[in-house]
């Protein structure tokens, strides 16, 4: 359906629409590890539920799909698109940073949006500094592809985060990106009370009464249902939810609870059916057990998010990082430092890549002394390479310490700022040259989709392509095989269906272990096979 028709439908249909955000549930509560088998298993029920949209793509998941799930992100989208023909597929992009952490050249952004728009109907996009010009190239590509554009205003609280500021940002969005959009209030850190959200929506709608608004919130503090209701009561049209079967802690609030509230408050939910929502969660309750080990070390609602403001996904990764650094005992110290760092660095939004910059700076400050070992990304932030500080500049001593430290040219921080600061124009990639470079490495013609992945994540995309050539479509394997700990007992059967619905069986017959190799014998679809894995120093063995 063309984007214009979708927006008209929203404008003229009374009621509230729900978008199921599995991408964020996976990212915030399960370290992005939800496997396609789970998504596909539940797809028919979600499709029948009548959600407006289903977010399955973007954010950190693209990189994790390549690195730790060995799934072609394009293939995942293709499978979901096929399995959910009646639901609009939504993806989240970080503007100029696409799905990574630094800006990409314009022609890479355009190519990526064009190729992904084959599968994505709604493009939700944000810039972590709310610097709207950073969205223009991707937004234009979305419009060119005829897809729905959903630019976000990242929301936070404290100094500078006033209604006037956000209304002015909304005006900038409309002026730079056009009026045929859905404006998303992106409350990734579960901030503000229901009253605060209601006031914000009211202010925006007062200035732009015809603007379609969506609300993306998190339930980190256990209060998002109330915020969702407040947003809807003020005229928000689309809200984001999760399946209650996942029992998300740091992600979205449960769909069913919101639906019950909405109905009791007299709101319609056009097209929504309750039974498939229940069916989906019944399945997911069992599936989630496969992913337990990827949940946060601390379970339960976290009202302290109001102070540290780390979004769900960043919080669990931050805790993991602290644990690895042996700093769990001092986590309170790191979180206090994070709050201080954020305020010192302009009270910016704690969302990727800002969340990583702030957290790693806090961690480094605790370990090495304040701003003693600044990261390159922090230097880029101070050089305004991502955009200007929206409210106030950091103190001069921070500029001095971060920018002058490690320089051998004797330049002062203010000279560095004068000479080097600001957004940088990136030259277009030589796509033909990069294609040849990729093809030389994989020794065969590359597809546009492979080139697209390679341009964004050169090393990981290459590793993935080689992995896929060697092992094929490993997403077919059940998640408990993919995340297996320990060998398989003799007689174990791995049973699964391929994309065509045909059943396959891999039966393990025996395992013979020697000092330097392991021989595994199977029946693969009733054919005997034996593989020898060398236990070399390499992590992955060589098979014969």
């Amino acid at each position, binding site marked *: 359906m063309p984007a214009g028709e979708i927006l008209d439908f929203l404008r003229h249909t009374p009621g509230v629409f729900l978008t199921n955000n599995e991408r964020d549930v996976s990212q915030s509560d399960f370290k992005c590890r939800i496997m396609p088998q789970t998504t596909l298993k539940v797809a028919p029920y979600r499709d029948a539920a009548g959600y407006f949209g289903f977010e399955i793509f973007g954010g950190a998941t693209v990189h994790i799909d390549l690195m730790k799930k060995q799934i072609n992100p394009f293939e995942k989208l293709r499978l979901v698109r096929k399995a959910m023909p009646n639901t609009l597929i939504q993806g989240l992009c970080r503007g100029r940073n696409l799905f990574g952490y630094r800006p990409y050249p314009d022609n890479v952004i355009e190519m990526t949006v064009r190729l992904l728009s084959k599968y994505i109907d709604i493009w939700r996009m944000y810039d972590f500094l709310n610097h709207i010009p950073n969205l223009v190239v991707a937004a234009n590509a979305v419009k060119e592809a005829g897809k729905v554009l959903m630019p976000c205003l990242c929301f936070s609280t404290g100094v500078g985060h006033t209604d006037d500021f956000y209304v002015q940002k909304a005006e900038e969005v409309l002026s730079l990106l056009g009026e045929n959009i859905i404006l998303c209030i992106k409350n990734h850190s579960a901030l503000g009370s229901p009253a605060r959200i209601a006031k914000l929506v009211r202010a925006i709608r007062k200035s732009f009464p015809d603007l379609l608004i969506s609300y993306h919130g998190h339930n980190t503090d256990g209060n998002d249902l109330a915020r969702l209701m407040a947003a809807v009561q003020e005229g928000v049209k689309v809200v984001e939810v999760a399946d209650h079967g996942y029992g998300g802690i740091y992600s979205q609030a449960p769909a069913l609870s919101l639906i019950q509230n909405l109905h009791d408050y007299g709101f319609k939910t056009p097209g929504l059916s309750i039974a498939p929502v229940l069916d989906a969660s019944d399945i997911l309750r069992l599936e989630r057990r496969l992913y337990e080990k990827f949940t946060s070390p601390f379970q339960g609602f976290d009202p302290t998010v109001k102070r540290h403001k780390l979004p769900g996904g960043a919080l669990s990764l931050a805790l993991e990082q602290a644990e690895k650094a042996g700093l769990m005992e001092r986590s309170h110290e790191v979180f206090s430092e994070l709050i201080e760092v954020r305020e010192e660095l302009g009270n910016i939004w704690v969302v990727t890549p800002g969340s990583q910059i702030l957290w790693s700076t806090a961690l480094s400050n605790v370990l090495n002394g304040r701003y003693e070992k600044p990261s390159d990304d922090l230097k880029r932030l101070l050089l305004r390479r991502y955009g200007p500080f929206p409210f106030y500049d950091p103190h001069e001593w921070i500029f001095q310490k971060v920018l002058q430290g490690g320089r051998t040219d004797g330049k002062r921080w203010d000279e560095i700022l004068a000479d080097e600061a600001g957004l940088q124009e990136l030259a277009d990639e030589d796509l033909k040259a990069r294609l040849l470079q990729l093809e030389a490495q994989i020794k065969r013609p590359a597809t546009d989709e492979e080139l697209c992945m390679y341009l964004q994540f050169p090393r990981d995309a290459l590793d993935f392509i080689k992995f896929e050539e060697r092992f094929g479509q490993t997403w077919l394997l059940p998640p408990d095989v993919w995340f297996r700990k320990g060998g398989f007992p003799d007689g174990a059967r791995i049973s699964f269906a391929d994309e065509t619905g045909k059943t396959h069986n891999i039966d*393990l017959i025996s395992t013979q272990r020697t000092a330097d190799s392991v021989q595994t014998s199977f029946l693969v679809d009733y054919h005997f*096979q034996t593989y020898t894995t060398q236990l070399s120093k390499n992590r992955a063995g060589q098979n014969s």
Partner: protein
Amino acid sequence: MFKKLLVANRGEIAIRIMRSAQELGIKTVAVYEETDKTAMHIMHADEAICIGSGPRRDYLNIERIIQAAQSSQAEAIHPGYGFLAENPAFSKQCTEAGLVFVGPPPQVIIDMGSKVIARRVMAEAGIPAIPGTQVLPAGVQGEQIATVFAENHRFPIMVKAVAGGGGRGIRVAQNMEELVKFIEVGRSEAKMAFGNDEVYLEKGLTNPRHIEVQILADGRGNVIHLGTRNCSIQRRHQKMIEIAPAFLPEELSNTICDTAVRAARASSYLSAGTVEFLLDQDDNYYFLEVNTRIQVEHTVTEMVTGIDIVREQLLVAAGQPLSVAQSDIFFRGTAIELRITAEDPKNNFMPNPGLIEIYQSPGGHGVRMDGAVYQGYEIPRFYDSMLCKLTVYGHTWREAVDRLRRCLDGFVIAGVKTTIPYYKQIVTDPDFIGQNFDTSYIEKHPQLLNYQEEVPPMGKLAILVAEINALGFNPYAEG
């Protein structure tokens, strides 16, 4: 009829011969070299005898094979194709040892094996031959003859080894410089390969078709033909795909078949043989050679005629007349045969021996498999790389091609690279489907090599499961 037959060969042809023998109630004896002791033909025989440590030399050792026949009390020996099949000494020594040799007598093998004598015999019988020379004398005299021949017939000119065959011992010269060089090189190569350094020249035809006629003769005056085959699709003079019939205009087909029968008579032929011709672009045909053995591609003829050629060979060898007359032979439909080998087409068709981890072959209506391998078989590096012959029958050409495509898709072979993906390219190629091919087909279709390697998808997944099993975790999920 004799009671026991020794098959002096290996692989698919040994099995194929044993099948006909067993149908006639004849016990079969396999021979094998130590390096070939897991070969499938051994399992198909009633008895098996190891004739030496191998590799290759014992299958060529006439004395050992005759000794094996005697010790097993076999009365007859079938040589198959290759190895000793066209060695007149073998036929002769079998006879001298009181064993029946299933094939023509030594003199026929000698005459037809010598390309020069064969050409003379055919010329005397009025059978058109490609213009050529006698054996070239050595030195300047030979070069002078070559120069005159080149002036009379123009290039290309083929330099052929007198003792060559099956595409071996042939070089094509495009100019005088190459001709002189190839005569010299051809001599030394022929000496090494065949123990005979004699070469001769033949006019090269531009993109001819390779047509051949299957004949049967019983030595009692009965000589019949079983129709034509088109074996034009060749790679470096080695046949890859064979088709029956050759789809020639009826009159031409009749003429060529009658010519083949005349050729057989002229050479006093006995048993099964093949008379090969080249057909130029104006449908002029020229005698090429006679193969005095059962040929790889005999299966296509069997499919379209219903005649069991090996059975007829055995009957004739036992002194019986052919069981069929020319008037009994009818042709129905089309048959196509592919030689599926363990070779890597992308690596210049380099043999790719190794362990066959999975082997699943197609079946169903109109499908004939002549295989010699099994799942778990380690293909030895010493012998030819043939895995199996796939022969399909179709009521029409198109039906046969469709069936061929279906069968190729039905193979599941893991562990070694095969020519199957290359054949899959051929059976979907418009020129092949449209029957637009001659001996230059492979050379003119380099794009056939542009295929993706196929490893069974479930086999790939199993490799990952093996790795997880070995390491106790999935290294690719934790990177």
